[in-house]
């Protein structure tokens, strides 16, 4: 048995012995996932047990070094853990922006002390992070951001506004892009900074979405004082001052990577396939085909595309591990994943017809199909719109000329 085979066997046993039955209910959704943070309350005893056992093993952040709360797994080992977890339909024990976005950026750019403080708190589910990038005037053209950050000797002074900050109202800290140099070319005056949301001068205002719910906010900074440092060799700024764009870009690749590695149709109809689900709802014709040929064709197309997408994630991961890197191809995954995510709930809305379009007297229930269908419109907007991904692919993968 090779070392990896041995590892697979160990992981399988560990999962089998440690993952509670209730946590094996298919992939996580935003409603049932474990986010962590100061305000976090476990939704069930099983969720708590699962989190604690995974934490003890370093499996909340499997690839991070052991000294920062991870398990120090190699990419191959992490892939095996993921495969085995999915094989028993287990939820991830913890997932949030700290793990998927800030963590990788800190691993690449942070000092040891920054990692020791922030990575460890993320791994332990103690601090929940939000992302302060977008501004009213800086969406796709993120580098034109204007939130002002002034050097006041022992601290930074921040004034400005962020928008679309997911979960700002329930997050503990924010990683922010701010402008430290207004004279320099737009990409060269940006700094990446870590801020406690409890700081004086920060206020948040939830924004209601078309679903009637409000998972994101406007975030205002009025004379917010941010310490230059949180301890020895532990500055509030990540990377160099005015070089925050490098950190941001690195992080966006991870964000796209993350958005691009969810199996997009899975979960739309629970463990059952969309087609099977449709067959139960709509019925079959005399030849055994779904009794709605046009819908049948759309479902088959989505399922085949979803499969080809999953294979592409696998292939690109293998290529990246073999040393060819993923690079701008992550934009391809982001594009396809967001289209399929939208498509999955669109199809389910069509399968269920007017039933799905009927909402209660209290409006659209959070976590309901209608809510997800409406929320999913955002997938091709957040993390860089589809059009922006196409621009990136044109330039960085295809090397097409610019105007």
């Amino acid at each position: 048995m090779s070392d990896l085979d041995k590892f697979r066997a160990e992981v399988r046993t560990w999962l089998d012995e440690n993952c509670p039955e209730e946590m094996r209910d298919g992939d996580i959704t935003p409603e049932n996932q474990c986010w962590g943070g100061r305000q976090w309350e476990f939704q069930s005893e099983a969720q708590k047990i699962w989190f604690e056992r995974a934490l003890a093993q370093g499996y909340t952040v499997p690839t991070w070094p052991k000294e920062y709360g991870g398990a120090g797994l190699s990419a191959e080992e992490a892939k095996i853990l993921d495969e085995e977890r999915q094989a028993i339909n287990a939820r991830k024990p913890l997932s949030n922006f700290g793990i998927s976005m800030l963590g990788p950026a800190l691993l690449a750019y942070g000092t040891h002390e920054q990692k020791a403080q922030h990575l460890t708190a993320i791994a332990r589910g103690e601090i929940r992070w939000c992302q302060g990038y977008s501004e009213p005037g800086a969406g796709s053209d993120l580098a034109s951001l204007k939130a002002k950050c002034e050097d006041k000797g022992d601290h930074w002074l921040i004034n400005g506004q962020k928008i679309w900050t997911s979960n700002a109202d329930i997050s503990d800290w924010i990683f922010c892009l701010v402008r430290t140099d207004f004279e320099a070319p737009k990409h060269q005056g940006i700094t990446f900074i870590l801020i406690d949301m409890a700081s004086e001068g920060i206020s948040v205002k939830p924004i209601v979405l078309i679903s009637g719910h409000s998972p994101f906010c406007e975030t205002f900074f009025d004379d917010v004082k941010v310490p230059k440092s949180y301890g020895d060799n532990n500055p509030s700024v990540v990377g160099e001052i005015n070089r925050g764009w490098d950190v941001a870009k690195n992080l966006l690749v991870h964000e796209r990577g993350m958005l691009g590695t969810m199996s997009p149709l899975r979960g739309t109809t629970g463990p059952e396939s969309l087609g099977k689900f449709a067959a139960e709802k709509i019925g079959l014709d005399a030849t055994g085909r779904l009794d709605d040929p046009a819908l049948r064709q759309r479902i088959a197309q989505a399922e085949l595309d979803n499969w080809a997408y999953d294979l592409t994630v696998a292939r690109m991961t293998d290529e990246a591990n073999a040393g060819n890197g993923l690079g701008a191809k992550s934009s391809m995954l982001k594009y396809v994943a967001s289209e399929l995510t939208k498509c999955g709930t669109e199809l389910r809305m069509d399968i269920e017809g007017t039933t799905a379009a009927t909402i209660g007297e209290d409006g659209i229930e959070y976590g309901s199909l209608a809510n997800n269908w409406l929320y999913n419109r955002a997938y091709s907007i957040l993390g860089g719109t589809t059009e922006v991904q196409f621009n990136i692919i044109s330039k960085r993968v295809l090397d097409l000329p610019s105007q």
Partner: protein
Amino acid sequence: MPLILNEEQEMLQDAAKGFLAEKAPVSAFRTVRDNKPADGFCRQLWTEMAQMGWAGIIVDETHGGSGFGYVGAGVLAEEMGRNLTASPFFSTSVLGATAIQKYGTEKQKDENLAAISGGETLFALAVDEGPRHKPDHIAFSAEPAGNGFILSGTKTFVADGHVADKLIIAARTSGDEGDTAGITLFLVDANAPEITRVHTPMVDSRNAADIAVEGLEVTGDDILGELDGGYAALEGILSAGRAVLSAEMSGSAQQVFDVTTDYLKEREQFGQKIGSFQGLQHRAAQLATEIEMMKSAVLKSLKDLDQDFDNAGMTCCLAKAKTGQVAQLATKEAIQMHGGIGVTDEYDVGLYFKRVHVAQQMFGDAGFHSDRWARNSGY
């Protein structure tokens, strides 16, 4: 099992690129098309391919093959697709070799596999009886007579049918047209006097033939696989064919796309490179993404054939569905983005458009395979 080529397969790919660039670039295909040799391909080229070990690419080494499996066959087919190489590779080395190696008796293997590997015997698979692929609609009859059967019926669109030395014919030994049970595969000498073969020139300038059989006597020894249970074997052969044909189409799609992006970087209108127009950039980016999805599906189907042949049917279905769509989109966009020269005969992109159309028809188009996927998934 990682979804990438191993070192050996990469070396095979490099060798194929080098060989085809020298011996069989698109200009060689044009020569065949314009000179219309009776064979429809270049015998000398085929001999050289056999010497390279390509004719027996999936054949085990014990039978004189090179034992590269379906991934190896796909690697070659992809390069042939890039160069539009016309040869008996697909019918003989993929369909014929799969049929014999997977379903033949020891005697049939001994008689045929080495001859396939040596490039000496050419095969063709006769399945369809009408203009659309319907492998479960077999009316071609095999009437029991004495110790054997008498074959009568017609087959259409038999790739390489007019040059083949041996034919594999799907015939009905029992049941009704439309039943999957009652189909039997026969391996027969293509030169038998009871067989009439008519070359049917196709829009892609590749070889195909209509075949008529009248009263051909065969024996139980000529059965390939099981009596009445030939459909499972047919499915297996078709799956292998679909995967390798998908690899060929994938090669064609990638090639026209490369040619097109080069053109976008070169051609100027309105004082700038046309590749700088976002209207074209976004379509190119979308197509590039579809091509990546197609490549994954194709490689997976080839790997599945190597690892678990009998259960590879659905990944081969995915591969053929996806390549059918993507390769057509790639060739259509190639013509469109080239403007006027895209529709000229002198320019190569039109040749790819034609080849991809015919390859997409062969063994089921995207619609056929999504229907198949849906049925297999219970809806």
